[in-house]
């Protein structure tokens, strides 16, 4: 909290700006959901692919092995893991006492997560 005595701002333009906290909150929830969904789908898919008892189901789903090796799925998953981890850590650290803003950390984490996601896309493209 700024310790300077401040008067209210002369003019605000709040309604034109995004509410960073709401963006962060929704991204955190969505990325968490993506991680949980991927783990669920991954467990089910691996079971069908590798357990002999599910060979009948596997035969009826020839597209299944390809689902998990789509570049966009990996990019989304990596983005989600990095964002969810780093933003969660940011929340923990700020609650432990380290003062930090809400704009710069959020967009830094989004940028870093996007880079990791992009790396996956490039890796699939052989770059």
């Amino acid at each position, binding site marked *: *909290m*700024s*310790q*300077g*005595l*401040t*008067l*209210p*701002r*002369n*003019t*605000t*333009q*709040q*309604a*034109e*700006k995004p*509410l*960073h*906290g*709401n963006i*962060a*909150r929704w991204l955190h929830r969505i990325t968490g959901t993506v991680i949980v969904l991927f783990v669920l789908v991954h467990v089910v898919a691996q079971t069908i692919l590798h357990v002999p008892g599910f060979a009948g189901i596997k035969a009826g789903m020839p597209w299944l092995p390809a689902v998990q090796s789509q570049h966009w799925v990996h990019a989304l998953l990596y983005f989600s893991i990095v964002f969810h981890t780093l933003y969660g850590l940011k*929340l923990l650290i*700020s*609650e*432990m*006492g380290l*003062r930090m*803003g*809400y704009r710069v950390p959020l967009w830094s984490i989004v940028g870093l997560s996007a880079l990791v996601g992009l790396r996956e896309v490039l890796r699939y493209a052989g770059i």
Partner: protein
Amino acid sequence: MTMEKITVTAEIQRFDPSADKEPHFESFEVTGLANMRVLDVIRSVYENQAGDLAYQFACRIGRCGTCAVRVNGVSVLACQEKCKPHMRIQPLKPFPVLRDLVVDRTEIEARLEELKLAPLRTHEHPGMPEPITPKRAEELCHMDSCLLCMVCVSACPAVEERPFDGPAFMLKLRHMSKHPQDTRNRLDQAVEHGMLECFNCDVCTQVCPADLSPAQAIREFRQELMFGGKRPVEGRPG
């Protein structure tokens, strides 16, 4: 120097509980100076187009917090917020609407009374100014600049989803907890009033018209909770 003029479209939520079943929007066009505030638009609508429009304002300089409304879904002080070409103006949520843009503040006042936001002293006032460090005085003064406009409470996602009184009340409790003469357990009060439900998203910090950070006040309470006991407060008599 001539000031540029603009025409804005304001969709204002209208609701008269004695006549309407549901709130509805009425659209108005207002022409004025390009730098007019949302309150100027509302006043122009009231004076020229809809004399029965209910709204509130007092100081017009962002000191009283009376004119708080939602513009395009974001809670703002109408007297401070610059007008936009197209605006959807609504009363603050989640408070009950008395009429049009006026909300019922009865519950707010009741909660403030319940929190007992006056220092509980262990001794009588000595009758002369009590010593306090300049740093502590400045900090208290800064926190005391909260307008209780309820912009933060209206914008807070935790208030909407969880049993949480809202950031403004937490800030007031933190203000009291830092007061050298106050002996009431403000941390317990904060927990009782939903402090742990806060998402730590800082929306309250972003929208606060007085540049305060209720989220930081909540974080300080949480540190106190995690690391145990009330940290020594400067200026508190030993």
